[in-house]
């Protein structure tokens, strides 16, 4: 089974993208496996709308551990199962809460074992950031791309394309991350999910 990790800063729409992709792939009830940083595992089945309501949040760090969903992809004649992993958002600084730090370590650990990597950047936010001051070496997205990019199966999703200013954000992301595959998506409207699906399929 291939593992596809979805990661990025907090609140960029990782959880929503995972759920919307599952929905797009015709998953009715999402069976989510929560994997505690300590090693404990449990799973819960949600109807899609409830999953979105309960797991997607306006506040950062709503996702506190690895949450994975299995999705079947039709590949050629057969079927292939992909484990889609939603993760705890990564920040630049040292976080105060030990559990969140643990969860972030878990994100990086899972990244090392993933064959497909979806790195989400908030295009809406990028469009509103001061275009003059480009991110430094210490920017999390820059570091993440430099680390994950060469590993293969990697793409950047510029999310929240439905929001104003996101087009400008997308252009900025394309400029800052030249050489990487960048897919414009709106997890909210479903725009671009087809391309995300194709990216996963290509790397199976």
């Amino acid at each position: 089974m291939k593992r596809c990790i979805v990661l990025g800063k907090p609140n960029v729409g990782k959880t929503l993208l995972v759920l919307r992709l599952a929905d797009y792939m015709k998953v009715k009830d999402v069976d989510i496996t929560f994997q505690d940083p300590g090693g404990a595992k449990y799973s819960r089945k949600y109807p899609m709308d409830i999953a979105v309501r309960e797991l997607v949040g306006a506040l950062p760090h709503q996702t506190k551990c690895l949450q994975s969903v299995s999705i079947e992809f039709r590949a050629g004649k057969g079927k292939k199962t992909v484990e889609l992993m939603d993760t705890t958002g990564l920040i630049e600084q040292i976080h105060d809460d030990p559990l969140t730090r643990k969860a972030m370590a878990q994100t990086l650990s899972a990244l090392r074992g993933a064959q497909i990597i979806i790195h989400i950047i908030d295009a809406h936010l990028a469009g509103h950031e001061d275009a003059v001051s480009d991110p430094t070496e210490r920017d999390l997205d820059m570091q993440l791309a430099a680390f994950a990019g060469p590993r293969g199966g990697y793409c950047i999703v510029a999310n929240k394309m439905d929001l104003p200013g996101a087009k400008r954000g997308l252009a900025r992301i394309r400029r800052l991350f030249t050489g990487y595959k960048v897919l414009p998506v709106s997890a909210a409207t479903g725009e671009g999910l087809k391309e995300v699906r194709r990216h996963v399929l290509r790397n199976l």
Partner: protein
Amino acid sequence: MPAFERRNPNLVLVGLEEGRLSPVEAIQALRTSSDSHTKKREIETESLASSEWRLNEALTELDSLIGLTAVKALVRELVAYIRIQRIREMRQLASEALVLHMVFSGNPGTGKTTCARLMGKLFREMGVLEKGHLVERERADLVGEYIGHTAQKTRDQIKKALGGILFIDEAYSLATGGEKDFGKESISTLIKAMEDNKDRFIVILAGYREEMAKFIQSNPGIRSRFPIHIEFPDYTVEELMLIADLMLKKRDYRLDLAARARLEAHLSRNLGSNSEHSGNARLVRNIIERAIRRQALRLVDRKQLTREELMLIRREDIEGNHEAVHRFG
């Protein structure tokens, strides 16, 4: 960042968990780690937690060894030192290269091999060594019969030890053969391999205290490359008794009071005697194993045996004379 560090990104993640590294610093450190360079996408089956768990496991095992106070303290120091050097590196502070080749001196049966094996485990969990296995060798395994043969033999053994520890027992015997002896060739081959494979294996030279001291003194090439010296003192009688109890307990036996007294008297006598076997755990093992056989002989013709009788080692099962020791030593 030294090569071995690149093999254990788990440490980077521990740093992140413990709040010593920010996620950005952690990603930077992981980036320089080899698995991203080589594009080798190893499946990360073992979690961080399990590596930490096994490290603690090995430390607990070390602590559970009887005696060896100085060794235990030194290992703790080393573990702490390695960690801090790593963190300093990740935070871009000057850090020293880790040179962990060691000299173990002490009589046979004082715990040298056991400690070496445990260190292998510890170093593996800390990412210092890739595998952490122990390759135990002596002169005959390293030295050959004709010119060129020795270098080949020594290299072969080193190859087996890559990723782990090469433990050379009675190492001084490599230097005792005089000018023409091939032992010298073995030493120079070893030193060259240590240079060529920095960080890929650890060499432990072991042997009697005086002989080792002389050996190290007269070989500057070795002296400068083995910064860690650990002495393994003889066990005291109390420690030997604890060792005996532990050995018996593991096998579901125990000593009755008279047997205890006899064993203790025997060990004290031996300790004073300054014989080759004094103060070592091998002596205890031999006596215990002999006692178990003697107990069996005592019981074998009896019809009714209680559980208690099957477990009990009595005074007459403990052999008191030196003969037994030498026969099975």
